[in-house]
């Protein structure tokens, strides 16, 4: 599989408040480090799951890919072109080819536009179809996401959460993208509705050959839909690899803790889990060394000094941990 997207050493620092005086004097304000050197390849036709706790940078990563955020350092290349380079900065065809869907089905649609208008607008702006063929294409899109045709004349508030997410999917598909970024697409939905939307997404992927970046905090769901999974902690990938391998045998102590914290349906699994102490440190003052060492029970002196690099581990994926061998030898 070839990589359609290559993310290299991506950093993003948000200024945490900067006054007019700061602008004038050029004084830097305080910074929140949202991404701290992310390397990631998105391969043609795959579903790459991204998991982590809130504030870990997974949504920021998604937003960088669609250029809603601009990275402070590093690059994102789409088919060999830097999407933030001067040549492609204003290239709107990139926006057509890489689409994003959002978490909140209640805010991601303009409340004053009907479904028909929302879809037609996307088609018109990108000249997807001649004017005369637009109504037919809108009808086709509604079929594609299994919405009734009378949805066209309705406003977003007349739909349920699951139906709105279908409209959002239809809008994204209207411009015939190659890559879909799904940021917590089904998190706000009830489980049975969740299942419907996920099924739709998997079907559409098959049908249209889409590449999907699936960002979510629901580990069971990510495991189910993904081919590969990346675990993010404090703006760094700590483990990445084949979905089944990673979920059945996580190698990084954080992945292990994260997976065991997910509540299983089996009541007999009670008490067998390794609980993670403490919370995510503030991204305003990042720990020196391995970002996880504060909460890690395997932490040693080297973890408090050096940041571990992401390295391939025999029979597993890539893991960023100084002690990956020892931990997994006795685990």
């Amino acid at each position, binding site marked *: 599989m070839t990589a359609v997207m290559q993310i290299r050493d991506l950093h993003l620092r948000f200024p945490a408040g900067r*006054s007019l005086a700061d602008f004038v004097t050029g004084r830097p304000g305080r910074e929140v480090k949202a991404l701290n050197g992310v390397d990631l390849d998105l391969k043609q036709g795959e579903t790459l799951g991204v998991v982590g706790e809130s504030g870990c940078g997974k949504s920021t990563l998604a937003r960088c890919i669609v250029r809603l955020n601009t990275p402070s350092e590093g690059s994102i290349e789409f088919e060999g072109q830097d999407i933030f380079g001067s040549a492609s900065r204003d290239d709107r065809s990139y926006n057509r080819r890489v689409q994003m869907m959002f978490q909140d089905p209640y805010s991601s649609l303009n409340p004053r536009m009907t479904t028909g208008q929302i879809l037609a607008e996307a088609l018109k702006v990108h000249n997807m179809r001649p004017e005369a063929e637009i109504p037919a294409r809108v009808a086709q899109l509604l079929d594609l996401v299994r919405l009734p045709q009378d949805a066209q004349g309705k406003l977003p508030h007349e739909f349920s959460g699951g139906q709105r997410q279908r409209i959002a999917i239809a809008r994204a598909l209207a411009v015939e993208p190659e890559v879909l970024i799904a940021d917590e697409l089904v998190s706000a939905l009830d489980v049975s509705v969740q299942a419907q939307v996920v099924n739709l997404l998997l079907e559409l992927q098959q049908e249209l050959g889409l590449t999907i970046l699936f960002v979510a905090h629901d580990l069971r769901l990510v495991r189910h839909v993904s081919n590969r999974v990346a675990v993010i902690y404090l703006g760094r990938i700590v483990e990445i690899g084949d979905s089944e391998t990673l979920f059945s045998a996580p190698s990084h102590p954080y992945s292990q803790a994260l997976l065991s914290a997910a509540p299983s349906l089996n009541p007999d699994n009670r008490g067998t889990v390794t609980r993670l102490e403490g919370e995510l440190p503030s991204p305003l003052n990042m720990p020196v060394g391995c970002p996880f060492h504060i909460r890690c029970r395997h932490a040693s002196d080297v973890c408090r000094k050096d940041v571990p690099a992401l390295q391939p581990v025999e029979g597993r994926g890539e893991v960023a941990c100084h002690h990956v061998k020892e931990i997994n030898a006795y685990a």
Partner: protein
Amino acid sequence: MSDAVFTPSPPSRIRLALRKPGFVAGLLIIGFSLMLALFPGGFAPYDPNAIDYLAVRQPPSWAHPFGTDLLGRDSLSRVIWAYQVNMQMAVLATVFALVIGVVVGALVGYYRGIADLIFGRVVDAVITFPFLVLVIAVVAVLGPGLVNMYIAITLVGWVYYARLMRAEVIAQMGNDYAAAGIVMGYSDRRIIFRHLLPNAITPVIVYWMTDMALAILLGSSLGYLGLGAQPPQSEWGVLIAEGRNFISTAWWLSLMPGIAIVLTGLGFSLLGDGLADLLRPRG
């Protein structure tokens, strides 16, 4: 509870609004005021400038329901003709401020950055002064008169609209449909004016209604002070000023235009309240 089911469409917004007595009253008052302003000749029983020295300062009677003034002119006709000037004030003193404010506020709220910081300072500077004081200062520079008054009120007033609009646009930017527009590759202009503006403008329109009432108040204050409309033009502030020395003997001179001001102000406020309900997005 309505999740996962189509909710039946509620009765139309307009019909609901028309069930509210306040909104209907506002609509009637402003509608009638507009009629008076557009066709004063059709309603006024006399020529507002016809002088009759034989009937000066007559109290209200069947012939002159609002009495007559110092020169024997019919007060009712003068109050009615004043609608033309005062309603014009309500619109002209606010509409440019509205347009400028909406555009500047939307742009600043959308782009933020250094322009926003500068805008913040401008707002601080304008808001620390009382509105009237600033307007009088501008009129003092430009000279008295209606047109200069409109310029003065617009120069100061747009800041209030822009501030409101900016806050609303920023709030709307928190909704993912704005981000979705960016991701869809829509132009900034489309996102600002087709997506954000229609959703952000409701409070601004409501404020505009109250501001029109305030503009009439401000305009007649300036007229009263001799900085706005100039006599012999019929304008409520001018009319009140003319009657101020006779308040104990010819009370109707000041009272009647005063009532007109209160009534129109009330009309705009009621209309604003009703519009707030009417324009709120559903969902």
